[in-house]
């Protein structure tokens, strides 16, 4: 069940812009913990087995990044040991871990983005801002599978006349491949002109372009969008008054635990867990519906 995915594309897009943008800026331990845990839980909720497959990539990446920083940076006061006269400090190690956490969290958010923001949603959204460009984008997206299909036909036809690119000497193979590509491009360009002329004949550019879409902006979309914007700004306020600032050098700053800071931490938690809440809520609803059937 993917409940958050059914929201209007603008809601999804603003959520990811807010989340990824803020995750890139905040280097505060509390904020990093929040973002990595929400990213992991949303990933598990959305991708399940796929997420555990990706783990093999993320863990070495994490350790690699955590190791690189203390090798290059020698700032900090808590010196552990000296390697070739350069200090390896606790601050640099923890800063490396912080950076690694941030990068892995952003990667995880992007993999959620790739599940939820499918290309049709992206093109729908940018068709309003930039119609010509999004038209180019959507035509190009459509052409890729079409070219693949045409490519197999060309390859088969060439095989019949003895230009099989899978056999023969290397030079023969290269010659055949270039020939196949060349045929494809000739076909594609002439075909494109046909399409363009028929677009023109049907009145492209006379009025504003209309596009079919199945996305309707409902009341719940407005509600969630308002919530995202509100929480985004409250986190910006937190950034301006300095709640999100944390120093690793020359030595660690203090993590604040007063009332205002805790409230700001909570607002960040709420912002990042919006999709997760809808996923869990949708799953529970589905289960109760199934049990009453």
């Amino acid at each position, binding site marked *: 069940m993917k409940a958050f995915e059914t929201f209007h594309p603008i809601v999804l897009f603003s959520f990811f812009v807010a989340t990824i943008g803020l995750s890139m800026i905040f280097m505060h331990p509390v904020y990093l913990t929040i973002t990595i845990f929400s990213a992991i839980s949303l990933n598990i909720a959305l991708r399940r087995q796929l997420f555990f497959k990706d783990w093999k990539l993320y863990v070495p990446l994490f350790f690699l990044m955590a190791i690189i*920083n203390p090798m*290059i940076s020698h700032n900090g006061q808590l010196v552990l040991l000296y390697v070739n006269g350069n200090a390896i400090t606790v601050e640099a190690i923890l800063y490396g871990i912080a950076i690694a956490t941030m990068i892995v969290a952003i990667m995880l958010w992007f993999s959620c983005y790739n599940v939820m923001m499918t290309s049709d949603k992206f093109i729908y959204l940018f068709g309003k801002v930039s*119609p*010509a460009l999004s038209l*180019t984008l959507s*035509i190009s997206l459509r052409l890729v599978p079409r070219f*693949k299909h045409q490519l197999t036909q060309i390859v088969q036809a060439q095989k019949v006349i003895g230009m099989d690119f899978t056999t023969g000497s290397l030079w023969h193979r290269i010659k055949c491949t270039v020939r196949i590509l060349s045929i494809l491009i000739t076909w594609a360009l002439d075909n494109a002109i046909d399409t*363009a002329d028929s677009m023109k004949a049907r009145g492209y550019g006379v009025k504003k372009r209309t596009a079919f879409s199945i996305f309707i902006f409902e009341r719940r979309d407005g509600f969630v969008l308002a919530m995202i914007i509100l929480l985004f700004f409250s986190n910006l306020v937190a950034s301006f008054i300095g709640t999100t600032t944390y120093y690793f050098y020359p030595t660690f700053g203090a993590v604040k635990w007063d009332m205002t800071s805790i409230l700001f931490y909570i607002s960040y938690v709420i912002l990042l867990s919006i999709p997760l809440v809808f996923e869990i809520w949708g799953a529970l609803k589905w289960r109760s519906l199934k049990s009453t059937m």
Partner: protein
Amino acid sequence: MQKNIRLIISFIVILVFIPLSLYAGITIFADRKYYFVSIVIMILACVPFFLSFERRKPQPREILVIAVMSAISVAGRALFVVTPGFKPVAAITAITGFSLGAEAGFLTGAISALVSNMFFGQGPWTPFQMFMWGMIGFIAGLLGKTRLMHKKIPLILFGIFAGIFFSFGMDVWGTISMYGVFSWKAYALALTSAVPFMIIYCISNVIFLLLLAKPISEKLDRIKNKYGILQ
């Protein structure tokens, strides 16, 4: 005349806007948020090209030709998915730039990056790839006017240049994402560790340019002359 104005605007953007936003990013964010600032700069750098394309109200034929060339380079990237770094995208973008001009070159490169990442997955690297491939197409477009690229030696040199250029650009992102802040020491480290990739980029660019430059540019020129587009 109109074409010259577009070229001047592009130059102003590259030489003035980007350094300015870099400076603003460093002063406002107090030298810390490299990761965020670099991505914003990359997106900003692409916007003027898209804007000028949008404002011009392009004809369907221009849109289709750019879409076709991007789709071919995406299909090429998918075809060579097993060989890391060995991709025809830069070469096809450059050839489009040679024949159809700087703007079409930039758009082909940028759209190829965006569309191919719709198949392979978007990430924080998307704006960097868009800009880097776009710039390869743009530079190719500027060079294409000189008719120098019909000879083999300049073509080989351009392929090597495009490989090094792409590698240097992507390593800026690599440095920032691995190290968190940008320092020349870390950048040098990233560059030296990426030398094998740089060599693969250069070799693949040279091979694809030598093989494809003549047939594809002949076809593009034919379409250009026959239907009078993107003159």
